[in-house]
């Protein structure tokens, strides 16, 4: 549905996007992930025909974004960063204006608007002036606008930024539900969000794609072994030296709080060292309160990938 090939965009003297290529298939929810200034918004602006690329090509639903801009724009619903709206208009007036621009047939307009109000949970503010809405509700008005013409593709630039935790959850659920009927490309720098709603992640940093995979594949591909947390009663020093002696263990960090001590054990390789740790503790007759392996989070991957080449 979206195909991007060797896309490069430079502003006056900043290279914002450099040789980016990726594809988004029909029905996918793909997250564009990257730190501030990575080039997420720039990529989306090119895809939505707001500005052209310096070089490279991009097509949306089979139409080229540069030569067939009008057709591309008919296929997409775009929620720009910060959700720009006309503050003086009422919600229903605004949606009516947008529905006309998007050429929703006049007979269907009202029912479409009602449906979008309903889906985004903003029916109760239908007659309110946009300027008086809270941030979360403005976000929803923006989202309702993207759905008006029932586009095949939704491009959402940081759809949950600035919302409270409850609203974030609701918007995520909404996006997830939308993903059943639409192809979604969204950008974010909130990692749990990607894990929760995206089927695939594209990580970009300084304008380049640095990783592209499903969240779970990215997790398993994270280099470096596991980290194990444990809580043991016994003499801290003896425990520490016993743990360090286990083959594969590279580092033992401990904190002493009287009888029960906490340790963090780092090991390399793929081997699960929990078994060895357990046996070692039983052999010494210490009492084990907790033994837990920490899974690498997308946060670690993100940190690792986006900091390693700078």
């Amino acid at each position, binding site marked *: 549905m979206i195909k991007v090939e060797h896309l490069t965009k430079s*502003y*006056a003297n900043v290279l914002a996007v450099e040789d980016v290529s990726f594809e988004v298939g029909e029905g996918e929810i793909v997250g564009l992930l990257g730190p501030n200034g990575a080039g997420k918004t720039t990529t989306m*602006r090119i895809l*939505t*025909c*707001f*500005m*052209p690329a310096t070089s490279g090509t991009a097509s949306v639903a089979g139409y080229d974004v540069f030569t067939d801009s*009008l057709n591309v*724009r*008919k296929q*997409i619903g*775009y929620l*720009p960063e*910060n959700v*720009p*709206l*006309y*503050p*003086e*208009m009422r919600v229903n*007036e605004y949606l009516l*204006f*947008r529905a*006309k*621009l*998007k*050429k929703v047939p006049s007979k269907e307009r009202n029912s479409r608007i009602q449906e979008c109000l309903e889906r985004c949970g903003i029916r109760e503010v239908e007659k309110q002036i946009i300027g008086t809405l809270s941030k979360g509700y403005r976000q929803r008005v923006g989202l309702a*606008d993207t759905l008006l013409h029932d586009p095949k593709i939704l491009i959402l630039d940081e759809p949950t930024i600035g919302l409270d935790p409850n609203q974030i959850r609701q918007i995520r659920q909404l996006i997830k539900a939308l993903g059943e009927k639409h192809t979604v490309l969204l950008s974010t720098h909130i990692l749990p969000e990607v894990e929760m709603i995206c089927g695939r992640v594209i990580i970009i940093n300084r304008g380049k794609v640095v990783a592209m995979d499903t969240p779970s594949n990215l997790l398993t591909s994270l280099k470096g072994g596991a980290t194990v947390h444990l809580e043991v009663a016994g003499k801290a020093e003896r425990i520490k030296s016993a743990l360090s002696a286990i083959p594969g263990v590279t580092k033992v960090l401990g904190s002493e709080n009287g009888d029960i001590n906490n340790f963090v054990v780092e090991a390399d390789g793929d081997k699960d060292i929990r078994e060895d740790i357990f046996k070692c503790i039983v052999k010494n007759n210490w009492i084990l309160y907790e033994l837990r392996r920490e899974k690498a989070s997308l946060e670690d991957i993100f940190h690792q990938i986006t900091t390693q080449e700078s």
Partner: protein
Amino acid sequence: MTNVPTVFRREMNAYFLSPVAYVVIVVFLVVSGYFFQKALFITTEASLRYSLAISQFVLSILTPVITMRLLAEESKTGTIETLMTAPVTDFEVVFGKFLAAWGLYGVMLAPTLIYIAFLSWVGNPDIGPIISSYIGLILMGAMFVSIGLLVSSLTKNQIVAAVIGIVSLMILWVVGFYVAGTEGWFSEALKYIGTFGHWDTFTKGLVDTRDVVYYVSLTALFVFITVRVIESRKWR
């Protein structure tokens, strides 16, 4: 072209939802009313000639106030991004906005028709120059609006747009006024470029094709340049 009415209606509604429209209409009414009664008492002549001559000066100030927000505000608030990523052409947006501002300009002039009714009641005005003057006002308005629209497309700041618009219109006015009565190709050229000479013929009761062509072609030119400016975001 199907989006032109949609854009036009939104802009018109926006005008009447903000104080700008009312302020401009009231200011124009007060100022033109003042000059109307002044001219009436000084000349004791049932004619609109003198009060309409003054109105070009007033309109040079008020028209950029009408047009200042058209594109500057969209750039400032970022709504240009939602607007231009909808399936609309740059021309539809620019032309819809042009028509809305021109429409408001017309609304602003409309109450002055009362003066004509008043003149017909107190005296026997020559209706020819009045009609031609209004045609002139409407055409001049199109050009003023197109200049204001262009200026508004060049900045994000409405105040800057208004000031540059007013200064540009003043220069266009002064240029022709300054060389009035002098000879030579240079002053002829300036007379043609300036709006003063063109407007003057209308107030004398003449609708000269040369003047009509002047206003219409400059309007088209400025609207066209505005479209190019909007497009130019793509090359920056």
